[in-house]
């Protein structure tokens, strides 16, 4: 039981880590392009958008690397789930305001935002984070209940 949960948890964590690492590195390497994407949401003043441009990709990369280490997985998962949730709210807000944006999720590779697709994709990522978090918690809980060999 623990073995199967651990296998699913590890597989999901590695998939999510690869995804966030790819997305984070693209934005990390192209801050100017990412700044225009952030500004396209019309949610933040310029100074804050500037900070987000540098901080968000760094946090994505750090948490993605953390996902690969079981010891840090819970925290990394929580951070990435939080980032995805915030992004979902920003996307919903942009959609409601009828903005024509480039989502900036994977650098400049996505030209125009297809809102239903983007929201669906991020809900899937959020679900992935949630499942990984829950499975990690379950594995730790099961281990804690195992009898210790004397």
């Amino acid at each position, binding site marked *: 039981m623990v073995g199967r949960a651990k296998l699913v948890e590890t597989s999901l964590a590695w998939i999510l880590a690869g995804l966030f690492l790819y997305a984070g590195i693209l934005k990390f390497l192209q801050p100017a392009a990412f700044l225009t994407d952030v500004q396209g949401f019309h949610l933040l003043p310029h100074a804050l958008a*500037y900070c987000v441009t540098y901080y968000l990709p760094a*946090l994505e990369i750090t948490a993605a690397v953390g996902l690969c280490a079981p010891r840090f997985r819970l925290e990394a998962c929580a951070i990435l789930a939080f980032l995805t949730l915030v992004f979902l709210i920003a996307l919903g807000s942009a959609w409601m305001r009828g903005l024509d944006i480039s989502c900036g999720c994977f650098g400049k590779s996505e030209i125009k935002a297809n809102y239903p697709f983007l929201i669906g994709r991020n809900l899937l990522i959020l679900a992935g984070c949630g499942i990984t978090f829950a499975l990690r918690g379950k594995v730790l809980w099961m281990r804690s209940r195992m009898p210790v060999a004397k």
Partner: protein
Amino acid sequence: MSVWRLAGFIILAGIFALGNYTLNAGSRPVAEEALQEGEIRLPDVLSSRNPVLWIDARSEKEYASGRIPGALLLNEENWDHLLPSILGAWTPGQTIVVYCSSHSCQTSRRVADRLRAEVDLPGILILKGGWEAWLAGQN
């Protein structure tokens, strides 16, 4: 879940972000993104000697709420209906400058590309920063 580990991630990301900022600040300001192919900045349009035909690629609603003086509406939704008025307004020697709402919108590029493909008019450019750049230039 450990609060200390969470804080560790947040601090480590901050250090990475600072490093990236330092590296990029040495090259060029992040806000001044280079012009892409076919783009022009507002000061260059305004200082140009050629007369300009402004094309607003935003929605009809946005166009109605505010536009560059003299701009004509041309968007993808009503392309066939709006194109004749553009062709009728254009005179030889005029530079066509297409704009949309901001830096990140892409409709101006799509409209400019479609104009180049469908109508044989010379000198079609895209305004860098779009309507936002125009508004900023007015302040």
